[in-house]
């Protein structure tokens, strides 16, 4: 039986790719082998379109223990403590079945973290939906949110933050990116590289079923009307089994019986076994009769390509089998030796006493195609819109419009479905600039933030890429953390289109430039291409997940203002940049023009100066200025503390709307005690930092001198309605 053209295509391979496979093998493949190649050579596993560009990202510095290339990145936060983290997309499955898609996304990223020996300590997510008016949006939103909660809550890992955005560009292709963060002793990290010959290859966790067969291929194929037919590939998550697997693995990791370990994620048994062998430059031989199966009569093809969840592959020290099995028995999990490592450098699969596949590992891993795809430099709109009209709208009206919009509304409806405090180390939950999680039993903490700005990236991919790294950096600083490193999830359309590829390349260039300048390396990440439906692609949406460290719990800051009479300072200059702002989008439905400019030097100086003030204990609360500008940021501080603000009239900018709603970058709002003003001024001046006094804390009333005033409680009510109304049973 030889492979047909139709079979090649239905496996997502191009004809010339199949010819290359034939050359590598010196023969035709059988169907099983074709399936294996297609899983390894597709975009999701091979990074064939992105690899040459990702190489540009800075991935090393003195705190990086493990950069990209492992299940997750690892950084050093001092005293033998290391933090393991990664973000991953589960976009396509979540669009087809929002609850299970989101749930299994969380499950997958948790496994990436605990495979490395770390106990997960927090979950974050970035979710993007279509327009609220689109018929599918409400269903997708509620399904995704309960799926994320359903999985994380049950495993007992707090979901501490994230971001939720709406834009018609995601109508038929939502984004669900999940990030997990774990803690490990830096001397007890586990890796996936196989070592040693004739070592047992052990399968642990759930049984293999027919779920998600070809999930990885699905993630690399664009949607069309026939996507519904791909339904049976939906995977169902079992958070209970995940919890058992987590505890069993961590228990086994207490001694040294594991040589290497890898979760079965995308492309299941295929990619996990091949990755381990490839990294160790070894071969691997599996006996498929041994695979624990959930259904009768599963074929080798189904076993190798199944994406059943909650499974791991371990290469074990041959003397430790018995002890290890005991642990998995205790947790009622399967533990089966399914093969061994070999010195043949080949993947050999046996089934019912026959050899059913025999492929050189290097053909699957190293020889996977690499493309330098054609790309077009994105055109940046420079056109300036007539700005007279912007003065017409009343500042108060504009503010309330933004505060009550889906993107800026209070997210309690979402976060109340997440257990944010289980594990009892969550110092700061979602709602602030970053979540803060204490390192168990220690007087230090990490800060985590997840950010994206698709509108900026669409308008100018390179500057947008820089911006999002900077915003993330700022969010970490705003809670008192020293920013350390990031993970990233790059959500784009089809890389086969030069225009989309151009967006990708420029975004990566922007991220690279900002990360290099800020000494903020990339330690892990994920690329999700083909986010398009019927050839319409989403806005370029890189999502950045950053981690910082706070070396003393009493230096943690929030945006909650503390005391009547205190002053609010702004750090960083306001030029009045309104293009791509929430002000124009929410009030005038204008989406044109360039995003705000990024000045990396100012960004860095301002951030470091803020950190210095925090270190000197001169700051009482802090908040970065981002979407919505100064006024929205001030309102958020007020709503958090329920204290009012008297805001001073702006002096320098043409109109007050431009001043209050501009989205110029590199700015922070800081609450200070009046008595410390001199001292702070001196420090800022010495460091050449631009600053100004913008407001004073008062009771109850939020007002701008000579403009308007409103009760803080009314601000809150405006800010707190949208989700409840949108999701009311109707």
């Amino acid at each position: 039986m030889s492979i047909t053209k139709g079979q090649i295509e239905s496996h997502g391979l191009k004809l010339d790719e199949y010819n290359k496979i034939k050359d590598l093998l010196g023969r035709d493949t059988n169907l099983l082998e074709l399936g294996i190649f297609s899983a390894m050579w597709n975009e999701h596993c091979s990074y064939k379109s992105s690899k040459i560009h990702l190489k540009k990202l800075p991935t090393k510095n003195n705190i990086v223990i493990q950069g990209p290339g492992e299940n997750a990145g690892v950084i050093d936060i001092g005293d033998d403590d290391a933090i393991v983290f990664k973000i991953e997309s589960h976009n396509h499955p979540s669009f087809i079945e929002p609850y299970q898609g989101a749930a299994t996304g969380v499950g997958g990223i948790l496994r990436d973290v605990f495979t490395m020996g770390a106990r997960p300590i927090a979950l974050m997510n970035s979710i993007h939906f279509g327009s609220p008016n689109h018929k599918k949006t409400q269903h997708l939103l509620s399904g995704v949110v309960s799926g994320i909660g359903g999985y994380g809550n049950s495993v007992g890992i707090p979901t501490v933050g994230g971001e939720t955005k709406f834009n018609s560009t995601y109508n038929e292709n939502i984004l669900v990116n999940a990030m997990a963060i774990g803690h490990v002793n830096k001397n007890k990290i586990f890796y996936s590289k196989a070592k040693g010959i004739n070592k047992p290859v052990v399968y642990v966790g759930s049984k293999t079923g027919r779920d998600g067969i070809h999930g990885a291929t699905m993630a690399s194929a664009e949607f069309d009307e026939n996507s519904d037919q791909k339904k049976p590939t939906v995977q169902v998550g079992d958070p209970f089994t995940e919890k058992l697997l987590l505890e069993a693995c961590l228990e086994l990791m207490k001694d040294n019986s594991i040589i290497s370990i890898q979760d079965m994620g995308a492309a299941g048994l295929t990619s996990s076994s091949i990755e381990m062998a490839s990294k160790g430059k070894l071969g691997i031989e599996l006996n498929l009769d041994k695979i624990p199966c959930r259904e009768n009569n599963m074929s080798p093809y189904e076993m190798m390509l199944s994406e059943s969840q909650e499974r791991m592959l371990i290469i074990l020290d041959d003397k430790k089998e018995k002890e290890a099995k005991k642990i998995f028995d205790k947790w009622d999990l399967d533990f089966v030796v399914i093969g061994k490592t070999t010195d043949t450098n080949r993947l050999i699969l046996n089934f019912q006493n026959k050899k059913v596949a025999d492929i050189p590992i290097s053909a699957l891993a190293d020889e996977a195609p690499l493309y330098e795809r054609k790309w077009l430099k994105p055109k940046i709109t420079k056109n300036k819109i007539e700005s007279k009209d912007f003065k017409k709208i009343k500042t108060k009206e504009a503010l309330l419009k933004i505060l009550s919009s889906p993107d800026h509304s209070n997210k309690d409806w979402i976060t109340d479905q997440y257990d944010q405090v289980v594990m009892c180390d969550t110092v700061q939950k979602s709602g602030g600039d970053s979540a803060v999680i204490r390192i168990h039993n220690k007087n230090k903490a990490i800060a985590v933030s997840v950010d994206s700005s698709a509108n900026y990236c669409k308008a100018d991919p390179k500057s947008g890429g820089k911006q999002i790294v900077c915003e993330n950096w700022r969010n970490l600083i705003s809670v008192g953390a020293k920013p350390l490193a990031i993970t990233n999830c790059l959500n784009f359309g089809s890389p086969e289109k030069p225009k989309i590829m151009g967006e990708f390349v420029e975004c990566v260039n922007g991220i690279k430039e900002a990360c290099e300048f800020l000494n903020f390396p990339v330690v892990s990440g994920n690329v999700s291409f083909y986010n398009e439906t019927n050839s319409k692609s989403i806005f370029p949406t890189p999502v950045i997940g950053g981690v910082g460290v706070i070396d003393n719990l009493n230096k943690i800051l929030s945006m909650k203002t503390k005391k009547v009479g205190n002053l609010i300072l702004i750090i960083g200059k306001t030029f009045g940049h309104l293009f791509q702002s929430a002000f124009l989008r929410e009030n005038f439905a204008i989406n044109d023009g360039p995003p705000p400019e990024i000045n990396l030097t100012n960004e860095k100086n301002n951030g470091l100066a803020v950190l210095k003030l925090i270190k000197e204990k001169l700051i009482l609360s802090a908040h970065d200025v981002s979407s919505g500008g100064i006024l929205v940021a001030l309102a958020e501080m007020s709503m958090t503390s329920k204290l009012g603000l008297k805001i001073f009239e702006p002096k320098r900018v043409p109109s007050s709307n431009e001043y209050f709603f501009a989205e110029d970058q590199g700015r922070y709002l800081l609450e200070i005690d009046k008595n410390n003003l001199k001292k702070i001024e001196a420090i800022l001046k010495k460091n050449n930092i631009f600053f100004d006094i913008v407001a004073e804390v008062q009771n109850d009333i939020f007002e701008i001198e000579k403009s308007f005033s409103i009760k803080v409680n009314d601000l809150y009510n405006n800010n707190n309605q949208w989700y409840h109304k949108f999701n009311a049973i109707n």
Partner: protein
Amino acid sequence: MKFSVTVTLKKDVLDPQGKVVSQTLRNMGIDNLNQVRQGKFFEIDLKEQDQSKAESQVKQMCEKLLVNQIIEDFKINKI
């Protein structure tokens, strides 16, 4: 007019609940158990005399709300 609706997971879809229930029953000493699958059950009471009309209404309820057809099948019975 009353109807019962039973909703079950499609054949190859993982049933974590059924799995744990089977395991527990086995631990409780029931050793001739092949498997348990768990689903949902609805009792729907309609003010409607015309059976075929009522039935098509129940079917619609299933498709629109009660059943996730991506992973579940359903059966309607008059009771």
